[in-house]
């Protein structure tokens, strides 16, 4: 066998490889041992996963725009009217009735820029609509993110355990999931939400999370079922990796795409669910408000007082879009195959 001369041949990468590989190979193999060692030192400090993910995320223009928008909305909503007793810079309260000024029309003008007395106008009762919208944004953000978080944690845990361990564990967990799916959310909500909602926004959000994790659990389980049969999982088992390590280090990172996409959907879904429940009088109750409730209260005003409809609508769209862009960016950031980043 004349394999010997073939040896060097293979050290060159195949044609499918990118230019970068060719370059680094040349510098590494061609140089003398000493210079080779030096170049190696310079360019080969092992990078941590987290750093790579951060780098990829911040190169994603959409995600960057999304996170900027979301942070701005957060700052605006919480600093303007204050939160949990801390006063904000806006001088009006969302639950104070006042005389209507110019039929409650918005006083905001862009050129020349001025906020005026009521930049977003006033509602039929004369409440300042800017303060009301900010309060609604706070509520909706809190609810949406708690629901997303709770659904993600429960759904991923249940799905991962069921998909990885199979057997009776899977049967038991998936039957519970099926039961939760078969009970219509609105019915449970009708029975329980009224009581929970009175306790405050956070218990209400936790409750919504507890009933909406099922879709995620099924998706994650499906991913686990296919990934646990992959050879790299066997390879990890063969070196003695524990179940926890296999789940968290080997399988879970490969399901990040699915988890993030469904979580962003769950967040958008939570805003809508909260709206529906509030409409039925089971969610956020007056005088408190949320974006969904604000739209519902004023849905008949679209033709006569469109601003009552448009401002909260714009904020819902803004939040949902920002969340989706961030989700997109996170998914790509966690995927090492994503070398080209969307511009």
């Amino acid at each position, binding site marked *: 066998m004349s394999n010997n001369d073939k040896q060097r041949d293979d050290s060159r990468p195949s044609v499918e490889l990118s230019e970068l590989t060719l370059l680094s190979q040349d510098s590494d193999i061609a140089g003398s041992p000493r210079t080779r060692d030096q170049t190696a030192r310079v360019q080969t400090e092992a990078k941590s996963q987290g750093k790579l993910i951060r780098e990829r995320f911040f190169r994603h223009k959409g995600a960057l725009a999304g996170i900027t928008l979301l942070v701005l909305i957060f700052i605006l909503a919480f600093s303007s009217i204050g939160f949990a007793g801390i006063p904000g810079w806006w001088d009006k309260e969302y639950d104070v009735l006042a005389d209507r000024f110019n039929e409650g029309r918005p006083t905001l003008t862009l050129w020349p820029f001025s906020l005026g007395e009521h930049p977003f106008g006033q509602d039929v009762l004369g409440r300042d609509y800017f303060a009301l919208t900010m309060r609604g944004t706070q509520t909706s953000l809190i609810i949406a993110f708690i629901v997303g978080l709770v659904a993600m944690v429960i759904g991923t845990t249940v799905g991962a355990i069921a998909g990885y361990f199979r057997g009776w564990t899977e049967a038991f967990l998936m039957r519970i999931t099926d039961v939760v799916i078969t009970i219509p959310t609105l019915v449970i909500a009708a029975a329980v939400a009224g009581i929970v909602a009175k306790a405050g926004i956070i218990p209400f959000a936790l409750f919504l999370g507890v009933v909406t994790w099922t879709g995620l659990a099924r998706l994650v389980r499906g991913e686990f079922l296919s990934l646990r049969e992959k050879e790299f999982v066997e390879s990890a088992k063969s*070196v003695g990796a524990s179940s926890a390590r296999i789940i968290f280090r080997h399988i879970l990172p490969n399901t990040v795409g699915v988890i993030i996409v469904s979580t962003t959907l769950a967040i958008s879904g939570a805003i809508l669910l909260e709206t529906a429940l509030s409409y039925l009088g089971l969610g956020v109750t007056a005088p408190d408000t949320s974006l969904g409730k604000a739209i519902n209260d004023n849905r008949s005003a679209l033709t006569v007082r469109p601003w009552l409809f448009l401002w909260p609508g714009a904020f819902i769209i803004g939040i949902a879009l920002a969340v989706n862009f961030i989700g997109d960016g996170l998914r790509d950031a966690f995927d090492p195959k994503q070398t080209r980043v969307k511009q």
Partner: protein
Amino acid sequence: MSSSTVVISDEQTPVHSGPILEVSGLGVEFNVDNEWVMAAEDVSYRIRPGEILAIVGESGSGKSMSSLALLGLLPRNGRCTGSAKMQGNELIGAPQSTLRKIRGNDIAMIFQEPMTALNPVLTVGEQIREAIEQHTELSPADAKKRAIELLLMVEIPEAERRYDSYPHQFSGGQRQRAMIAIALANDPMLLIADEPTTALDVTVQAEVLDLLRTLNKRLNSAVLLITHDMGVVADLADHVVVMEKGRIVEAAPTAQLFSSPTQDYTKQLLGAVPHLGSKVGGVLTDVEVVDGRLELHEEYAEEARRAQAEHSASGVEPALELVDVDIEYPGRFRQPAFKAVSGVSITINPGEVMGLVGESGSGKSTIARAVTGLIRTSGGSISINGTDITTLSARKLKPLRKRFAIVFQDPAASLNPRLSIGDSIGEPLLLHEKLGREELDKRVAGLLDDVQLPIAFRNRYPHELSGGQRQRVGIARALSLRPDLLVADEPTSALDVSVQAAVLELLQDLQRERGFACLFVSHDLAVVELLASHIAVLNKGRLVEQGSTEQVLKYPRDPYTRRLLAAAPVPDPQEQSKRREQRSIILAAGTTE
């Protein structure tokens, strides 16, 4: 080229003296991100009636794409230039409607994977009939008759009954025969066979190649054979075209190409192909054909048996010892449990390489997984350095895992796509030696160096590497804890020949240097011959033969081993044609024995 000729006769020879297909200056390009990337360039060749032309090349050489282009079957982002004339009619740039008439009628195609090329919800017969009805006006009854004749022609037993079978009821070889029947349905003048035997076992491959050869002689249709396997080329082809990176490197008659290749690339390619019998000096030496009958030399057997007895009584504690191992896959519902391995005993001494050979379904991968504690045995014992691992709990087994490691077949699947190369290689070290960051980095760098990869690769991800590089990573990972036993499960079967040669060389060097024992699982006898000092042959879960490499290859005692050895094609046309005769006699003897 009348499409209504459906005369069924063995002697249907088209009256054309010129070439059936004449390709000149064919180029194929793909649009990738608005850039045209060349897949094949300036490809020219011609095929005469009744001729078998082989296009050989490694993956990415453009051999498949340049052939798909003939039929207008390129993916959407592809385009082709140049000219391809089928009996004077231009194919390149012809409208789809014209090409559709030609496809399946004048030019037929056989694909690599018969399971995916056949529709699982239609019976095989219906699919052949469909191919006939597409291009002729035969009545359904006549078409069925013709379909059964085709099944008979491709040597499917009980063709009438098998007409109503579904693809899953056929074996792999039969499915490929059915595919050939579909391809031949309309007496094509040209048959394009794209890696027709790559997915098949060697013994089945030999049968399918025989079938292609006899059909080619009987029907006088030309065959364009696309393959990476030099053995298949040596066995079947009249002319060979060697392609590299989209260009034709060399074209010559088969005998000439193998005996005196002119181009460096061809020489390299031929040099990289493992040649069965090259190390031990010939195979099947104890079998001699005298007057068309099989003659065995019993004196070799005695010697072989003595050598084997000495080996097992050497007194060293074996690195791996399997005693009467049974492995069952549990049944489900009413299915009975499937016994994948039964009563297998193998002994590997420290520092020895044992080749475990068998065809698909023989249980060789199952044994590899059982040895590394990935699946449980249902009987017998597996001892590594004297410790029986079959009775250990997962917790007790864990510290032992340092002592053995496995290299998997498909390097693309066995590396976690989300872990960097450095993390993948470092994982066993992290789990067993609890090293600090700095120490770990140093060890990983050392391992990368051992498998001849640049240290910069530690920050890469598996998808950025080529197949051979990935397998080097797999080897580095397996060797990270300096195991006493390495299990290699077909480590090179997913790789191109030249890459395979390099990876085998690496494995050999590392083995020599570190002296670990190795269980090398493979379906390829030539590869095993190169590496292993001992060979065990498995057939349907049973060990049929075990002994030193020389003994098993030269003086095989078991009829199955003989069949296996006779079926493996060697990259040498003259030798291969001799082996073909030998094989037919061994087969004949096998049936009368």
